[in-house]
């Protein structure tokens, strides 16, 4: 059927193409190159942003090819799918051959061109049978189980080690399949969102990023406490923690103090500590002096709904607060003086670092030592049933790579034959990979053989 081979049907040609390593090289390089776009063009902005940034022509190109959200675009997904199909077909095609090689079915070494890497040759005065026995012992102790065959008066031995390494590549490729599957499961059934909860309050819904609206999760989340720890040296955040309580049907069913890198898990939902902020003043610690700078009150705590009575009978109260979330402008509060339930005057007071540190409010000077804010905790909420599949993929790819790179299928053949009244021993070996280390290993084996046969 020589002609049949030349003229392949279209289906066969497509199949061959889908199996080919040429396709995988093409797809890998295409993935590498196209991925660059998404790192240069900011992702997830709207059309007008791109128009402003890149001008009309480019904005149009970005729109057509979905470059603003390219990792989720149809063509990028197509490339990823092509890689999966390629791997699947390629494995199906190659696994039978790999299994055959694993069997070491052919012990007879006949100087065939089987990519023999290394050879060894020695002669001995002992009989063929005796030498074969010694060789068999040596090979089974140094390599593995030995197969034996006799042909034309010669004895052939064969042994191998690390057969399983031939499966390494397939294990590796299979893991990629798991990554694909995990990602699909995750995007089909997962949830990504977030919620901010003020200390002491309960959230009954969270924001669903995919739907763009608030949704209930089937349980409520209360934040009992939020704590921020700062580095003494730099004043930057060292750690932040929230104590969360899950409430289901009015009952507390779970409680955990979460921090960054340590989430709370409930019903498959993960609650991650991701941010924090302040939303209002709980109270202010302040000192008040008269215009003569003599202190009237020192380090008094003024609550949001309380007041501090001044010598003239008026009451100092908190009216308002401000805070720049970026931390560039100083924090401050607006204070007011009330008399007989009416506001007499107001004054802005900045927190302690700003000079002058005493600010006028009516006929008093006020220094704010500390502002005690209401904190809110910012939580990321995620549920991703694909994650266990991804974990399995991680485990399997690690295993697969270790096997495919650091193990090899090493085969050693031996022929013991009679030649000019003497017994001739030949060894030959080959390895599926790692030639240099195989050579060293074979050298050691040959040294052992030398000693065995020369005794």
């Amino acid at each position: 059927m020589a002609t049949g081979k030349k003229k392949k049907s279209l289906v066969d040609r497509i199949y061959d193409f889908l199996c080919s390593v040429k396709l995988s090289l093409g797809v890998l390089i295409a993935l590498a190159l196209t991925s660059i776009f998404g790192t240069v063009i900011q992702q997830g902005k709207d059309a007008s942003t791109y128009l402003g940034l890149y001008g009309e022509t480019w904005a149009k190109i970005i729109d057509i090819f979905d470059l603003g959200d390219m990792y989720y675009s149809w063509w990028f997904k197509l490339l990823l799918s092509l890689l999966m199909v390629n791997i699947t077909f390629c494995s199906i095609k190659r696994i039978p051959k790999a299994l055959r090689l694993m069997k070491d079915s052919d012990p007879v070494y006949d100087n065939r061109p089987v990519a023999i890497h290394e050879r060894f040759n020695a002669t001995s005065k002992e009989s063929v049978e005796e030498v074969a026995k010694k060789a068999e012992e040596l090979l089974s102790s140094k390599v593995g189980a030995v197969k034996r065959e006799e042909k034309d008066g010669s004895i052939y031995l064969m042994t191998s080690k690390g057969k399983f390494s031939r499966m390494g590549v397939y294990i590796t490729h299979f893991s990629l399949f798991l990554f694909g599957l995990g990602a699909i499961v995750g995007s089909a059934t997962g949830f990504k969102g977030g919620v901010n909860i003020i200390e002491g309050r309960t959230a009954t819904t969270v924001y669903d990023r995919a739907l763009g609206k608030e949704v209930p999760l089937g349980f409520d989340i209360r934040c009992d406490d939020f704590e921020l720890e700062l580095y003494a040296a730099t004043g930057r955040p060292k750690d932040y923690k929230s104590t969360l309580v899950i409430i289901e049907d009015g009952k507390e069913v779970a409680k955990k103090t979460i921090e960054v890198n340590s989430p709370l898990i409930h019903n498959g939902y993960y609650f991650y500590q991701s941010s924090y902020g302040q939303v209002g003043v709980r109270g202010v610690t302040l000192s008040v002096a008269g215009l003569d700078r003599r202190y009237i009150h020192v380090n008094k705590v003024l609550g949001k709904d309380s007041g501090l009575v001044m010598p003239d009978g008026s009451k100092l109260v908190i009216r308002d607060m401000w805070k720049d979330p970026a931390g560039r402008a100083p924090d401050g509060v607006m204070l007011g003086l009330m008399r007989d339930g009416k506001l007499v005057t107001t004054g802005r007071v900045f927190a302690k670092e700003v000079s002058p540190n005493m600010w006028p409010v009516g006929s008093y000077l006020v220094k704010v030592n500390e502002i005690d804010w209401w904190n809110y905790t910012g939580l990321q909420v995620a549920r991703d049933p694909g994650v266990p599949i991804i974990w399995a993929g991680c485990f399997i790819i690690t295993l697969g790579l270790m096997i495919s790179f650091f193990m090899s299928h090493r085969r050693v053949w031996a022929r013991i034959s009679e030649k000019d009244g003497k017994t001739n021993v030949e060894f030959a070996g080959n390895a599926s990979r790692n030639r240099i280390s195989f050579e060293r290993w074979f050298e050691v084996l040959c040294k052992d053989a030398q000693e065995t046969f020369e005794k």
Partner: protein
Amino acid sequence: MINTYNDEMFGIAMVIYLLASVIYVVYAVSQNKKVGLAATLMAVCGFLVNTAAMGVRMVETQKVGFYVPLSNMYESMVFFAWSIMLIYLIFEYVYGYKVIGVPVSILGFLSIAFVSLNPNISSELSPLVPALQSNWLTSHVITCFIGYAAFALSFAISILYLIKGDDKKSGGDDDKPPILPPKKVLDELSYKAVAVGFPLLTLGILTGAAWANYAWGTYWSWDPKETWSLITWFVYAAFLHARFTAGWHGKPLAWMSVVGFGAVIFTYWGVNFWLSGLHSYG
């Protein structure tokens, strides 16, 4: 600024690497065994000083609240120098071929010089923001950087491959052995280095994903650093397949290693300097 001793020690390591590269050059030209030994000893010495400096820095972090010093450009670069010397010295021990020590110790020198002589890069100890306080992160950085170092070694070997003329056919009449190892050996060693780097980069990407999953609830978010590490990964996957299944060898593959290392450099620095994202710290 907090007084530290590790900067000076890194400076010493840098100078030793420079000296080592000079001795390796002398060795390459003279092929004198004693010079070769001196070169290796010098490189080992630099490596030990580098190691000690990292240890001292780790102890010194206690001044600001203990952390594993792998969190900013300075710390990662001195660790990169350490990694490439480590991988190279193992290769030298296993395979010989000391000429490779020339480009490698130059790379070791350059990576320390780049951060310690650059006024824009601070060697100050800076404690970690909460998201970075994770064992996953430490494993992530270590695996990525040793992987990068292995790719750098492959790059160095590929450069030697590309500048070497054709091998002399059988024996030749030179009484001196050629300065550079045979091309076949360079080709094989360059692959070897990739075979070490690829699993490490893979582990690096996986531990990074694990960390992201614990810190943000998303194992993959296509941020530029992540994407670039994936690009690098694709390039080296292509390298391996080109070699193993498409049968590429020699020049095209050496160029592919060069391109791959370009991707490594971009993942490492380019992203920090040109693009923005979650990894802006280093």
